[in-house]
C-alpha cells in the first residue's frame, strides 16, 4: 500500500526525462573518450584498444607547442586576473554603497554579457592597430610575443576569478579583522596576517576557474592570435576542417581530463568553507 503513496513533489515523466538528459549529456563525451583508444585510423570502426593516438599526439610537435602555449597563457591570465580581481573584490565588498559601484560591477561582468564573437572582432581590430603603430615606431619585434593573448585572456577571466573571491569575502567574519586591529595589528599586518589567509581558498578557487576558462577559449584566441600562435583549442578547431583522426580525440581527452581534475579540486575547495 505504501508503494502507491501520493508524492506531492512527483510530476509525471519528469524523472524519466531527467535520466534521459543525463545519459544524453554524457554519452557523446564517453564516445569521444572511447574512440581516443581506438586502434583503427578511422573514426568509424572500432579496431581494438590502443594508446597509439596518445603516442602520436605526444610526438606531434604542433600539439606540443600548442599545449605549452595554452598552459603559459592560462597561467599568466589566471595570475593576472586573480590579482586584479582580488583587489577589486576588496574594493567593492564590505563597505557602504558608493558612487560608481554599479559601474564597476558592470565593467567587471561585461565579458560575461558581450557575445564572444563581438569581443573577438573588437580585439582583433585593436591589436591590428597596435601592431601597425608598434611597427611604425620600429618596435615590430614586440608584436610576435604572447602579450596580446595574455592581456585578452586576463580580461575575460576577471569575472570568473572575481565571483568566488567576492563570495568568500562576503562570507567572512568582519569581527576577526576588528579583533586583529584591537590586538595592535596595523592595517597592513591585519591584511597580511588575517584577511589574506582567510581569503586564500577563494583566491585559489578563482584562479582555477580563470585557468580553466582561459584554457578552453576558442573564439577570442582564434581572432587575436598571429600566425603560428595556435593554442590547443584553436589547433583542434583547425584540425576539424581537415581529415579527422582519433588523434583529436586523444588531445580532447587529455584536455577534458585536466579540466575535470581542476573542477573537482575547485568544488572540494569551495565546499570546505560551508
Amino acid at each position, binding site marked *: *500500500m505504501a508503494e502507491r503513496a*501520493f508524492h506531492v513533489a512527483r510530476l509525471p515523466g519528469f524523472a524519466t526525462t531527467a535520466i534521459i538528459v543525463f545519459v544524453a549529456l554524457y554519452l557523446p563525451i564517453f564516445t569521444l573518450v572511447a574512440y581516443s583508444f581506438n586502434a583503427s585510423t578511422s573514426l568509424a570502426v572500432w579496431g581494438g584498444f590502443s594508446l597509439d593516438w596518445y603516442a602520436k599526439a605526444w610526438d606531434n610537435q604542433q600539439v606540443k607547442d600548442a599545449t605549452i602555449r595554452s598552459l603559459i597563457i592560462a597561467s599568466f591570465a589566471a595570475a593576472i586576473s586573480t590579482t586584479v580581481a582580488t583587489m577589486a573584490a576588496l574594493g567593492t565588498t564590505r563597505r557602504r554603497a558608493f558612487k560608481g559601484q554599479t559601474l564597476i560591477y558592470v565593467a567587471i561582468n561585461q565579458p560575461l554579457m558581450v557575445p564572444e564573437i563581438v569581443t573577438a572582432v573588437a580585439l582583433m581590430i585593436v591589436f591590428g592597430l597596435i601592431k601597425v603603430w608598434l611597427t611604425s615606431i620600429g618596435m615590430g619585434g614586440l608584436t610576435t610575443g604572447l602579450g596580446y593573448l595574455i592581456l585578452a585572456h586576463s580580461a575575460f577571466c576577471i569575472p570568473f576569478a572575481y565571483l568566488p573571491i567576492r563570495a568568500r569575502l562576503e562570507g567572512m567574519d568582519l569581527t576577526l579583522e576588528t579583533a586583529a586591529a584591537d590586538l595592535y595589528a596595523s592595517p597592513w599586518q591585519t591584511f597580511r596576517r588575517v584577511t589574506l589567509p582567510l581569503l586564500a581558498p577563494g583566491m585559489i578557487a578563482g584562479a582555477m576557474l580563470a585557468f580553466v576558462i582561459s584554457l578552453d577559449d576558442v573564439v577570442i584566441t582564434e581572432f587575436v592570435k598571429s600566425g603560428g600562435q595556435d593554442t590547443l583549442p584553436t589547433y583542434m578547431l583547425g584540425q576539424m576542417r581537415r581529415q579527422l583522426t582519433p588523434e583529436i580525440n586523444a588531445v580532447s581527452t587529455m584536455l577534458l581530463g585536466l579540466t575535470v581534475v581542476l573542477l573537482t579540486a575547485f568544488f572540494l575547495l569551495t565546499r570546505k568553507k560551508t
Partner: protein
Amino acid sequence: MTEAVTIEARNAVKAFGQGDHAVRALDDVSIQIRKGEFFTLLGPSGCGKTTLLRLIAGFEMPTSGAILLDGADITELPPNKRPVNTVFQSYALFPHLSVAENVGFGLTMQGRPKAEVDRRVAEMLALVKLETMAGRKTSQLSGGQQQRVALARALAPQPKVLLLDEPLSALDLKLRKEMQVELKRLQTETGITFIFVTHDQEEALTMSDRIGVMSAGKLQQVGSPKDIYTRPVNRFVASFIGETNFMNATVVPGGVKLGTGDVIEVPTTRPGAVTVTVRPEQVRLVAAGEAGAIAASVKFLVYFGTDTHCHLELADGTEVVARLQSPANGEAGIESGQSVGLRFAPGAAQVLED
C-alpha cells in the same frame, strides 16, 4: 447533538524509514471524530499528531490501517480528491496570487463557475473580516491577516472536515487569544468539523469539544476537556495537561495508603502499588495536627500574583505543591519552614490507570 462519525482512523500505523531503522510515527491509532465537533489532537512535538493529520489530508499514506470519511474508505484517495481542507502551519499562501485569488483557488480548481467563485470569495472574506484586502498580495499582509486568508481559503470550498495544523503557533500571545475566539466563532457559524492540532494544552482546553492526547505515536486518552483534566488516565496525560502532584501509594480496603501511612478514600479497581494524582488547586492547607490531615512542612513559596504556589514536603519525603490564593494586603500568609496539615478536596485524588 448527532453522534454521526465523520472521520475515522482504524489501526493506523505510519512507519518512516526501512527495516531496523524504521520509526513508528503513528503506532496503531484508532479514533472516531464526530460530525460538527471541534476536535483537538494534543501532544508534544514528535508525538504523531501532525502525521495523523497528514494521513487524513492525504499527504501521507498509512503503512497499514485505514482512514474513513463518512464510512467510506479514503485511504488511497489523493488529497485533491478529498473533501478535506487544511490550514497549514506556515499558511502556505500562494505568493503569486492576490488574497481573493488565494481564497478562490480551491473553487476554481473544482471548476465552479466564475460568478459562484466571486460570490463565495466575497462571503469568505466577509467572514474573516478582510473585505478590504481582496486585491492585496499576501506578502503585504500581517501574520494575523495571513492566518485569516489561510482560513478563508480552506473554508471556501465548504469541506466536510477542516484540518488545522498548529495554525496559531506563529502568532504573538495577544493575537493568538483573539484568533482562538475567532476560530471557535467560525466553527460554530459554519458547522464544519474542525480537527485542530496543537501542543498548547491551554489552547486545547479552551477551544475543544473533545481532545485526543497523543504521545509516542499512540493515542493516550480521548475525552472532553473536563474529562481529560479531571480524570487523566495516566501519568503522561496528567502531567502534560496542567500541573499536578504524584504520590506513590498501595491499595488498601476502602482507599489507598500513602507512603506516610495516611489512608485516603479513592475509588479504584486496581490492586497493589499505584500512583495517586491531585491537582495543586485541589490541595487545602489546614492547621498542623488537625484530625485526618496529612502532616507536611512548607519548603518554600513562589509568588504568582493572584496565586501563590506552596511547595510542601510530606513525612516520607514526597513533594506536593498547593496552589493557594495569595493573602490579601496586610494579611499574614504561610511562611517557609512552617508545619501544616493538608487535605484534598472531595473526589480530587485520582488513581492513575497505569
